[in-house]
């Protein structure tokens, strides 16, 4: 146990509160600004206190902007990303840990490479592949037609799914699962798939939930790839849409209350998710079974 003393406790609490303030202040400003009219904000700058126009501004987000449909896009893409990563990394981590692969370490190193090379720094080749996913087959001389996934939900999600973080997390978790469980299942007559389904999946529920939340948030807040891979406003994600609100103002002055109302609305879904699944998140990060 770490020794606790009252004075030390107070200092820690002080630092904690400072940190909370530091994080919450921008959110507070966004929310407060969203509750004023555009004219007010033009006159007196960003607001620190509530005003009467919050509902009106939020309604304008739904009537005057593409944010609603873009939030739907975000939801689809983030769900596809999170579910895809969970399924893919569950299978890959299972193979790495429980199957005796001859070059397992090499496979793992390759998967680990995707963590070191995120989509952000390989946007151009990724775009090239997505604009015609049949290109590798065409290069082999096979008669295939061109299929482009650019500007589709799948195209927005796929590059994020092919990412090693989930595999790495689940691999670390699987290594804490006693090997004798796998042997016991084999003695009971369960094959690899039954063991995976009947034993490993129920045990992995907290780890998978944590992975799901993390990857959903990642999918929701992704900016660069959705910006590049979506060419129409109706296929853009909410985060890209938010950025566009600031720059698409033509000659008009930027409508700060509308932007802040939209930003607050868009944050609502990930915030709710964190609030609901917080305990899984904490437990999954610790990655240990009580």
């Amino acid at each position: 146990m770490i020794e606790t003393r009252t004075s030390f406790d107070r200092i820690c609490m002080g630092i904690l509160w400072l940190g909370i303030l530091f994080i919450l202040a921008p959110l507070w400003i966004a929310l407060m600004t969203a509750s004023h009219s555009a004219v007010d904000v033009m006159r007196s700058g960003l607001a620190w206190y509530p005003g009467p126009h919050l509902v009106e501004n939020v309604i304008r987000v739904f009537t005057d902007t593409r944010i609603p449909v873009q939030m739907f896009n975000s939801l689809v893409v983030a769900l596809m990303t999170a579910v895809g990563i969970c399924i893919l990394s569950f299978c890959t981590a299972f193979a790495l840990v429980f199957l005796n692969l001859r070059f397992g370490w090499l496979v793992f190193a390759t998967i680990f490479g995707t963590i070191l090379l995120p989509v952000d720094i390989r946007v151009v080749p990724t775009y090239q592949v997505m604009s015609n996913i049949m290109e590798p087959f065409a290069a082999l001389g096979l008669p295939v037609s061109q299929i482009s996934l650019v500007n589709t939900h799948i195209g927005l999600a796929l590059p994020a799914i092919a990412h090693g973080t989930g595999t790495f997390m689940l691999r670390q978790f699987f290594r804490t699962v006693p090997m004798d469980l796998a042997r016991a299942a084999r003695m009971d007559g369960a094959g690899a798939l039954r063991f995976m389904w009947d034993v490993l999946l129920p045990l992995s529920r907290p780890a998978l939930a944590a992975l799901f939340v993390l990857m959903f948030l990642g999918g929701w807040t992704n900016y660069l790839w959705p910006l590049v891979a979506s060419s129409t406003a109706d296929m853009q994600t909410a985060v890209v849409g938010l950025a566009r609100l600031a720059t698409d103002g033509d000659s008009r002055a930027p409508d700060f209350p509308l932007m802040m109302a939209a930003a607050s609305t868009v944050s609502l879904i990930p915030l709710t998710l964190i609030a609901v699944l917080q305990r899984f998140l904490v437990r999954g990060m610790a990655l240990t079974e009580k």
Partner: protein
Amino acid sequence: MTLTLERPVAAAAKTGTDIRIEGLAKTYPGADSPVIPNLTAHLRAGEFTVILGPSGCGKSTLLNMLAGLEAAPTGRIVFGTREVQALAPRDRGCAMVFQNYALYPHMTVARNMDYSLRIAKVPRAEREARVAEVARMLELSALLDRRPSQLSGGQRQRVAIGRAIIREPQVLLFDEPLSNLDARLRNETRMELAQLHRRIGATSVFVTHDQVEAMTLADRVMILNKGRIEQFAPPSEIYAAPASTFVAGFLGSPPMNLLAVESRNGRIRLPDGGTIGCRRDGMFQLGIRPEHIRLGAGAEMRVQFREELGSHSVIALTTPDGARLRVTAPPGGTGDALRVSFPQDALHLFDAETGLAVRELLIRT
């Protein structure tokens, strides 16, 4: 009719088969020497065999090969009349109890036990009957809806055994199942296991590095050293006539004293001052168990240290040659020196080079 009903289901089923192991060998990839070079043995039907050896002697590998959890590339394993070395674990008719229980943490006791029956698509009514029967036998009936985390160590151990015997296996394998229990529980569970074995009658193979488990549970003990069988005999025989210095030094607490001696002109000079006749001249290892050394007469030896164990004490002496000799004595003795003598019929003789017993060379008078 009522008589047959009273017999436990598991016991009413088939009794064990014998196990023939012929020319079994195994080398792990990348290893210089084989874990098991060449092993042949015959385990009789219904027999309780304990495989005993230090860590790394190949005993777990041997058990895993019997179970089918590890491939047996060379040699044959025959259960009864069936050659099983190429079969999957589920097709061998054997079950296993693991060291750390290896119960499925998310399943209830009942589910843990009937999981294998579900996989084998046994009808529900029969499954339930068998679970109830095994639970009654192992006194788990009140715990069927609990999860492993809600059970004590001993109860978990019984569930693990229940999971193994519910399939009525012909061969029961135990991978150091008692090593995780505390000393008191280990004693109790050991006795329960012995009783259970008598009731079930399956051929049992039990791997351990604990010699007390081996001595108390086994019909026969197989002592493994570097993948080779040093001795395969009933516990009493292993104690009375160890086949090699390895066995002599491994079994018994404290183990047998081994002293380097030389036979010249047909006689060996004993450290207690006496001599004994020997049919061959050369270097030997003389063995004598600490509990067989007689106190109060013979040569005087200096006491190095005493260990008081309550029921008796173990005293380490220095022989005139400077070797260490352990003696068990009544508790509470004092003094810097002791007189000891070696009864002739308690002496063992081993070849100095091969380590094998050459008891027949001694001429006892």
